[in-house]
């Protein structure tokens, strides 16, 4: 069967499944399905959180970055999982005890200030919008390949679908649909990895396969890969190339950003008990770890297969020729259609610069004739490894599930922050329900238009853009939450000054390196040669957080102390007893 038709059938079937479950859950149940988390088994709740959390960045982009970045990109693996430890120990149980639904509500109440609440909303919108830009990049890649159109056309089609999905209320908030999305996503991610690991190492578990021996040579696959990349002049896979300072700050930034991202935190607000908030974070990480332990294997093995594809006779032998690509198969008859298919999207390109009829794939930029966008690696991986058509279609479905669910969720978070927290809460409390809904839709449309426009010339690969969003959350929201729980001395003025200082310095640092409002060409510095030491814009969130803490404590020490009733609030959120159910907006 034609791959294109197969893609449509499998993607269509998964969407039918989500819609079917949404309808079944609506029709077959009373309130228990709607009260997010309550009455849902913690394990299922963990799966739903996993689907919510793992976006285009984790699914589509991360393994591709690892494939080309090697050891340096371990920061994504540690950073995007280590934050759950902080969440479970430092935030989730106390925010659950507090017993309201949103992050701005907590900050507004704890710092007894509407200004603090508004600043928190602004921080939330800034981080979420940046996050959506990263998602749109991933959506564009997935749709362009899946519909076999250019990357730009894929981005516009994807944007339209995300918009409809989000405006219709999507299937967000319905836990069982998210459970289904998680199952599709994790199957789609692991099946090709299992096949490839079996082929290369004979070990069916990719995480173990990564550290096993190559069945054909008997040498460990990591050292074989290291030999290939260094012989071709690429940067080392196993050695550290980035500075220790940048790797350290990048990891801090991603970890505390995870613990500060509003759409993750809210999942822990509504679990039945404080004790459940602690274990829920654990279950979420179990399901996230299934993907994260597989990702480094996917990255390394994809890189190996990619090199072997373009050097069918070994790297010492003759490279792949243009004629072979045109014919759609190499001399041994191995299928090369995927190279042509990805070339259509513009995300894979080759150019026979020296006119020898061969594709030279080497580290030296002058001589290299093949460019591969990092974001296509996971989606192209089953094709590169020549797996059956249904596996390729399944990966497309998984990528779309990951990107669409997170993008729609973020858009809803942005729109409710604008319409509920900002307009109804602050500007016009008498707004009608209809007016509020209208404001929410307008906010959503504006957000997606901005994200799509910036997605055309993204500030980086999907996972890198998402990393910037984590930096913003790390610098603004995480410190405010921490001080709200663990300090009784940080007051309203201190918190506001801290959040603003953290957010503004981080936004400035990012804009100076990535261009003002992410518009290409308006940057003063580059990440290759950053402004301060070796600190890249993706890592600055950690510095922003430190500034936030320092400013908040300084300002608090010279302004009025925290009132007694707020000290009592802090005392009460520290003990689980008497939590009760979460109460309304």
């Amino acid at each position, binding site marked *: 069967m034609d791959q294109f038709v197969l893609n449509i059938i499998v993607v269509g079937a998964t969407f039918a499944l989500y819609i079917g479950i949404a309808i079944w859950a609506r029709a077959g149940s009373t309130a228990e399905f709607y009260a997010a988390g309550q009455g849902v088994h913690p394990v299922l709740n963990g799966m739903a959180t996993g689907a919510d959390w793992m976006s285009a960045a984790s699914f589509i982009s991360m393994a591709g970055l690892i494939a080309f970045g090697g050891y340096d990109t371990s920061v994504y693996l540690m950073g995007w999982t280590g934050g759950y430890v902080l969440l479970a120990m430092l935030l989730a149980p106390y925010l659950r005890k507090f017993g309201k639904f949103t992050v701005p509500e907590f900050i507004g109440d704890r710092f007894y200030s509407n200004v603090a609440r508004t600043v928190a909303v602004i921080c939330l919108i800034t981080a979420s919008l940046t996050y959506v830009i990263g998602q749109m990049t991933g959506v564009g890649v997935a749709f362009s390949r899946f519909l076999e159109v250019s990357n730009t056309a894929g981005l516009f089609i994807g944007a339209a679908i995300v918009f409809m999905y989000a405006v219709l209320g999507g299937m967000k908030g319905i836990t069982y649909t998210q459970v289904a999305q998680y199952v599709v996503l994790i199957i789609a991610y692991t099946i090709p990895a299992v096949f490839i690991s079996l082929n290369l190492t004979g070990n069916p578990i990719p995480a173990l396969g990564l550290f096993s021996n190559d069945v054909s040579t008997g040498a460990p696959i990591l050292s074989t890969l290291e030999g290939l990349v260094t012989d071709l002049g690429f940067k080392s896979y196993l050695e550290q190339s980035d500075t220790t300072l940048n790797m350290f700050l990048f990891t801090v930034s991603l970890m505390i950003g995870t613990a500060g991202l509003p759409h993750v935190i809210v999942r822990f607000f509504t679990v039945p008990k404080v004790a459940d908030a602690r274990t829920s974070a654990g279950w979420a990480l179990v399901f996230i770890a299934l993907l994260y*332990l597989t990702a480094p294997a996917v990255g390394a093995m994809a890189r190996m297969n990619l090199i072997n594809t373009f050097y069918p006779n070994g790297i010492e032998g003759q490279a792949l020729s243009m004629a072979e690509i045109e014919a759609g198969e190499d001399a041994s008859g191995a299928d090369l259609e995927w190279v042509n298919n990805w070339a259509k999207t513009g995300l894979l390109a080759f150019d026979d610069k020296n006119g020898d009829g061969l594709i030279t794939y080497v580290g030296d930029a002058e001589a290299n004739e093949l460019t591969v966008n990092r974001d296509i690696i996971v989606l192209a991986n089953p094709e590169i490894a020549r797996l059956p058509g249904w596996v390729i279609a399944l990966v497309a479905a998984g990528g779309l599930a990951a990107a669409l669910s997170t993008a729609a969720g973020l858009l809803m978070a942005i729109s409710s922050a604008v319409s509920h927290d900002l307009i109804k809460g602050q500007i016009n409390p008498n707004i009608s329900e209809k007016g509020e809904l209208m404001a929410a839709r307008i906010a959503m449309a504006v957000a997606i238009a901005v994200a799509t426009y910036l997605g055309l010339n993204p500030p980086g690969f999907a996972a890198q853009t998402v990393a910037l969003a984590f930096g913003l959350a790390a610098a603004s929201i995480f410190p405010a939450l921490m001080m709200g729980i663990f300090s009784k001395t940080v007051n309203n003025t201190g918190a506001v000054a801290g959040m603003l200082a953290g957010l503004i310095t981080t936004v400035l640092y990012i804009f100076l390196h990535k261009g003002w409002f992410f518009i290409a060409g308006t940057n003063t510095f580059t990440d290759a040669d950053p402004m301060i030491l070796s600190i890249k814009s993706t890592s600055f969130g950690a510095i922003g957080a430190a500034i936030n803490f320092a400013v908040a404590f300084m300002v608090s020490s010279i302004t009025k102390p925290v009132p007694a009733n707020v000290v009592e609030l802090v005392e009460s959120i520290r003990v689980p007893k008497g939590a009760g159910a979460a109460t309304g907006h």
Partner: protein
Amino acid sequence: MADNSSSNAYWKANIQTILVFLVIWFVCSFGFGILLRPMLAGIGVGGTDLGFWFAQQGSIIVFLVLIFAYAFRMNKLDREHGVDE
């Protein structure tokens, strides 16, 4: 609300637990994965060294163990101090 001295003792025990767990968290990720990797270079794991393994897999496994261990320990503390729900 539970009486103040009891919840103070509870909070102190909680902070102590958190500090111990955070040290493990730090050592197994930032430590073995990044800062101390050169010291672990001699210990080989499947074609590379132990530091690489911690950076790409080991840290994640430690994180998982930490969260469930913390939940277990806190449930016990909650009961001991009579602040459980």
